[in-house]
């Protein structure tokens, strides 16, 4: 007899209750360190646990740390449990930074067996540092090479970064279908669109920062776009859900760089919105799964990851969740191959490779954000940041740092997580370092 129990220890408060949606506030920077620490504390407090207990006497445990909401994760876990009734499953839904911090904290004696997170640079950093262990199964070996690294890190989902606009925008102008068209609209009618375009604030959101870096790598005209966004005083949000809410309420007309998996579900329930996968290029992020090297239960971990890479789990991802399936054998809507057929070569999955490490470099982040800020505020004219202008602007002092433990290697002597101040200023506004998945799949 199988018995599954869904228990949520803590109900997560909706993010929007933490304050008004943020536009750029300079005084925030001074409290960056404290804010980061407070976020860590918040993340810990908001942990959710899903437990599927086995009815078998000598059940084997399996502990998964993930960044994926329970409604999306539940069908997968139930299916896995049905196929493996002898495994006691514990799934902990954490925030990205919290997951990273916990893994580093438990480095010597890990409690989790499997990590699953869309924060690709952070996951890659853990694997690169040698915390992961390779999986050698048939499905792991057959996994597409572009979606894996060293048999240790597997991209199991495929989620494009999209634009969302209101349908009534068509009455004023032709809706943008690509990055170039968005830039043209912004340049053609900066006053008409003033405050009506919304995107991630890369200084506050890790996801937004990652996309900014990838955008900048793909095209130098990205800086023209940032400049145009700044000129039309574009609104900056920290989460996809905040952007979607604003769009639905009519405050914004166009949203740029939203996570496709959330936008898709949201747009399906809000007919006034329309989702567009950009036709010149569309970034795609992947949720990276890895087994921990010193996992307490390597056998069950292996079975779970192998299951995730198998056709049944991938078909489930394509049909019952808004996450895209990667498995080449799974076709139809909700898969990477379907998206590729629709958009063609324009789809650009974020490459799983050492380039991701550059994203986490402290100085790199400061340099990019300084450049972004100057382009947005129209000071540097969108040109590449020179050291002199950068030093004049003083970004090193003014820019916030990401949570130290998440950026620097665990091997670097840095303030440990426990020694960070736990107090913060939650009322200062929503600050999401990298939290693309914390918004609800459906409102």
């Amino acid at each position, binding site marked *: 007899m199988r018995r599954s129990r869904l228990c949520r220890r803590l109900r997560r408060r909706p993010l929007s209750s933490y304050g008004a949606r943020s536009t750029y506030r300079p005084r925030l920077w001074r409290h960056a360190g404290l804010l980061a620490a407070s976020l860590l504390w918040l993340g810990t407090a908001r942990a959710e646990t899903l437990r599927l207990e086995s009815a078998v006497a000598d059940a084997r445990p399996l502990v998964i740390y993930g960044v994926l909401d329970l409604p999306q994760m539940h069908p997968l876990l139930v299916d896995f449990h049905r196929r493996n009734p002898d495994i006691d499953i514990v799934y902990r839904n954490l925030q990205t930074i919290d997951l990273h911090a916990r893994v580093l904290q438990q480095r010597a004696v890990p409690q989790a067996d499997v990590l699953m997170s869309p924060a690709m640079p952070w996951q890659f*950093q853990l694997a*690169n*540092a*040698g915390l992961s262990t390779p999986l050698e199964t048939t499905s792991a070996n057959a996994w597409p090479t572009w979606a894996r*690294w*060293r048999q240790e890190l597997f991209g199991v989902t495929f989620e494009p970064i999209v634009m969302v606009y209101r349908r009534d925008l068509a009455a004023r102008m032709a809706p943008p279908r690509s990055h170039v068209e968005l830039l043209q609209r912004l340049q053609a009618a900066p006053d008409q669109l003033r405050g009506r375009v919304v995107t991630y604030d890369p200084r506050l959101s890790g996801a937004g920062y990652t996309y900014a*870096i990838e955008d900048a*790598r793909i095209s130098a005209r990205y800086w023209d776009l940032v400049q145009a966004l700044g000129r039309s005083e574009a609104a900056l949000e920290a989460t996809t859900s905040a952007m979607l809410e604003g769009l639905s309420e009519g405050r914004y007309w166009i949203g740029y760089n939203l996570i496709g998996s959330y936008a898709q579900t949201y747009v399906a329930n809000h007919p006034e919105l329309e989702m567009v996968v950009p036709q010149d290029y569309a970034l795609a992020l992947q949720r990276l799964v890895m087994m921990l090297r010193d996992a307490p239960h390597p056998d069950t971990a292996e079975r779970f990851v192998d299951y995730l890479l198998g056709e049944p789990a991938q078909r489930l991802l394509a049909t019952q969740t808004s996450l895209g399936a990667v498995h080449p054998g799974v076709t139809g809507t909700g898969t990477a191959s379907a998206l590729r057929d629709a958009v063609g070569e324009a789809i650009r999955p974020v*490459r799983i*490779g*050492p*380039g*991701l*490490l*550059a*994203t*986490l*470099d*402290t*100085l*790199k982040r400061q*340099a*990019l954000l300084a450049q972004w800020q100057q382009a947005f505020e129209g000071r540097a004219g969108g040109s590449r*940041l020179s*050291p002199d202008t*950068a*030093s004049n602007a*003083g970004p*090193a002092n003014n820019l916030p740092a990401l949570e130290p433990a998440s950026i*620097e*290697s665990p*091997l*670097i*002597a840095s303030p440990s997580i426990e020694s960070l101040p736990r107090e913060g200023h939650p009322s200062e506004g929503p600050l999401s370092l990298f939290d693309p998945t914390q918004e609800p799949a459906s409102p």
Partner: protein
Amino acid sequence: MSLAWPIRLSHLSLYRRLTVWLLLPLALLVAIMLIDARIGARDAADRAFDRLLDAASLAIAEQVRWQQNGLWLDLPASALEMLATDAEERVFYALYDAEGHYVTGNRPLPALPPAADGARMRYADRESDAMPLRLGVRRARLAGWDRSDRFEVRVAQTPEGREALAAQLFRASLLNVLVIAALALIGVMLAARFALEPLTQLRRAIRERDPRTLAPLTLTLPRELVELREALNELLARMRRVKANQERFIGDASHQLRTPLAGLSARAELALRQSDPERWREALVTMNDTASRASRLAGQLLSLTRLNDPEAALERERVDLVAIARACVRDTFSRLHRGGVDLGIEAPDQEVVISATAWQLEEALANLVDNAASYGATQVTLRVETTPARLIVEDDGPGIPESERLLALRPFHRGQETGSGTGLGLAIVDSISRAHGARLTLHATCPNRRERPGLCVVLAFADD
């Protein structure tokens, strides 16, 4: 134990020996080539992959600036991606300032001592956190107007890629070496077979010969085998001589035996024609005499054959010459005395012991004494001497002229046609003396007496 295998090796055929001694150095050579290929492959892979460390560290170093009060780096993602090849190596980088303080990076990396030749780039293999790393450290200076601080870019990658390349290169050279080794092996075996071909020819030539022919081998052979062929031919020549001697001996022996037998037959025929018993008696006496001579001849022929048989093992024992001489006198004294011959002995009181075969010495003495009596001596003296041990038989007979003394040693040679000798006595003595390694000399007893100088036969034994 270590001696076991060369001994076993001596049982190997020449072909195997040659192959083994050619293949051992070949195997050694192959092993050296393989070790060299392994090291070479490793070096080549390291050189190829160190270029990546060089390029990546250069790409990073070019982005280092001085800003406000510290080093500033806009890390190019391509520099890190450059470090990871198809083997998906783990990649680490770090920037250190002039004082060796960590500025940025994803892992602290160890410093390397400066290069002796002042090279900007240094490489080393390091183990870090149970992870083998290839480390590249670049020393550089800021290229600014106002500051030229030193700094170090350290990059590292795990060695999967270079190991794969080294293995691939090694496999290629392994194949080459194996092909060369196989060709060399075939060459060695063919060479050994060709080199040993003349030996096979020689063997075949010897085996295919008629066993009765003793003609010399006339095979064209390489220089090393010519000596062997000459030795074989010499042996064959000796065998030819021996065979000729034997044939002559058999001829002589049958001739010698036929004469008394023919005499016996004639005498018996003559007697049968008569009816006087007195005549019969005379005939019987003569026939008895002839028969005993023939019998003695046959006995001597037998002992000569036995003496000349090289395969008869001689059983040496300690023999007292004095005792032998006395025994000879005891046995023959009365017979000689009846024939009017005076036999005497001169011997020391103590024993004269040598290592010899007793019956042969007795035979020799008996022959010498009989010889002396047969050829008309009236006085025969046996003498034994110590230091050196010598056995001397003297007589006062007619002796042998100096020119015939060597011939006298040959079988069936009789100095005078008178007397009742068989012509074998001295030949037997000569054979026995040679079998004992003794020296046999003949000379006159009293050279002054012209008519009867007498004969003195000396058997000088070598000192034990």
